[in-house]
């Protein structure tokens, strides 16, 4: 398992969160923490999530799969930033 932090911007549409969570469960992604908050504009929400990936699965792949969801406006892998913030 490898750990990654992803940050997503979602359209505030019914079912948007469900779509993302179902993608995690369909693709065997373990969610270790998840937080959803309005991003201020009203039309979008920000989702921060920390996930564990099975060996052989890459975060790039997951980012692209999340990117296919119509309600997802952007996805970034912040694993590296966070590691920097923590001084790692």
């Amino acid at each position, binding site marked *: 398992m490898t750990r990654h932090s992803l940050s997503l911007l979602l359209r505030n549409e*019914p*079912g948007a969160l469900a779509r993302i969570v179902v993608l995690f469960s369909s693709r065997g992604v373990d969610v270790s923490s998840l937080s959803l908050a309005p991003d201020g504009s009203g039309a979008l929400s920000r989702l921060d999530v920390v996930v564990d990936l099975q060996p052989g699965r*890459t975060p790039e*792949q997951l980012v*692209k799969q999340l*990117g296919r969801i119509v309600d997802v406006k952007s996805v970034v892998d912040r694993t590296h930033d966070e590691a920097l913030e923590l001084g790692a």
Partner: protein
Amino acid sequence: MDTTGAGALVKALEDVGCEVIFGMPGGAILPAYDPLFESKIRHVLVRHEQGAGHAAQGYAQTTGRVGVCMATSGPGATNLVTPLADAYMDSVPIVAITGQVARSVIGTDAFQEADIRSITLPITKHSFQVHDPADIPRVIAEAFALAVSGRPGPVLVDLPKDVLATATTYTPPKLVLPSRPVVPPVQVRNAAQLIGSSKRPVFYVGGGVIRSGAAPELLKLAEKTGIPVVTTLMARGAFPDSHRLHLGMPGMHGTVPAVAALQRADLLIALGTRFDDRVTGLLPEFAPHAAVVHADIDPAEISKNRKADVGIVGDCRDVIAALSAVLTRRTDLTAWWSYLDGLRATYPLGYDWPADGALAPQYVIERISTLAGPESVYTAGVGQHQMWAAQYVKYERPGSFINSGGAGTMGFAVPAAMGAQVGAPDRTVWAIDGDGCFQMTNQELATCAAEGIPVKVAIINNGNLGMVRQWQTLFYDGRYSNTGLGTHQRHPDFVKLADALGCVGLRCDSRSEVDGTILEAMAVRDRPVVVDFVVGQDAQVWPMVAAGTGNDEIMAARGIRPLFDEVE
């Protein structure tokens, strides 16, 4: 207020160019059926909603347009789950319209309530539930655009009954198709460089080439470069079978030269394909010496199963055209071709006749192909007959073979043929079906009979769930647990069943009658025809790469492993 939600739905469907809907009414969707009654859209009343979904898939694949199916809430909607999953796996553009219980009772376990949006989340590109009738035209246009753009796929539109019944003002929708991604020139140059320096390249062609309408460009590029071509199950017809550069289908039941081309290649040029396990076999042993150029419209496919050295996100038509423009030098592939031609000569597709004098299923399919020709459309169920339909029908044009590749859905053939025939009324449509598969969806022949949709069905009646039986023969010591269907004992009698469904029923069990029976079936134009081809139960699909093994272990026939022996 000039209409209702239902009126807006039907008008919007007309305005986005929908010409046919396959569906079945019921409580929640009933308001939509009223304006449909006088619409110019044809509605084909199916006998099971699964048939509506597969028919929409068949229609989409013969016409290149969006297929539409419609069902009521609850069980009507859940009956669409299998075709939605199938369309998702095979990237088929369909829109499913479902009725839903009224907004006020959603979430109360109301009569015929099922949360179809949640149920189908992992098997749709997107889904909508509309809460304001004024939104219906926009949502229909968006659903159509989503279904066909990028990587095509299924989209669901769920409509609560009261939204359909509420008065609204119609605003004509604008169908806005997103522009195709610009093919990155750097990647194209890198790909061209790899192609230019490779000694053993191969075009590994998938269904994306058919979806994007890139077959003519592929033909030009292949002829320009002289590079061998293999076409996957989903790509049969993307490149003419009669062409000297074509080595056939790769994969679990692929030809020896096609599998060898991938295994021995130093470069795979993968176009609109997804390195499915049925093609790669054991992934670590797949194409071990090859660099990979992978072009696909879906960025999530690139490097998913096999790392691409050059990934190109783009529509296959654009990518192939871009490659054609930069590839000027033709490399010398003489040694590569002499190796592949050697395999082609030594291991052509072939079969033995059953020792007990029974009819060979492969022969039946070969004759249908010869007599019906490449202008016909062929559909298949799932099993041995499907693999023989992929191997022994000679495809010359894209869209002429429609089958369930990714999902492997038994029962696909008959309803898909129905949809294909509606989409291509002037073509002959043959469903090559299994005796097991046929029993899952044959009720749609009543639809075909009632609606004047004259499909032809060849039941390859081997008395068994043949593909499962083949695995039992090979991997379970011939212990045939629950694979006999009793169809050789006429449970059911397919000729009588055909007759009862309003079709012509024919039977054939000997070689000398095969051509005559096929011609008799082809002569019927006013009704569907079912031919019960009674064939031997022990015919097997060869070649075969056993599941969980590497492609080098391909068996041309039982015990014959040409590539493995070559390695030693």
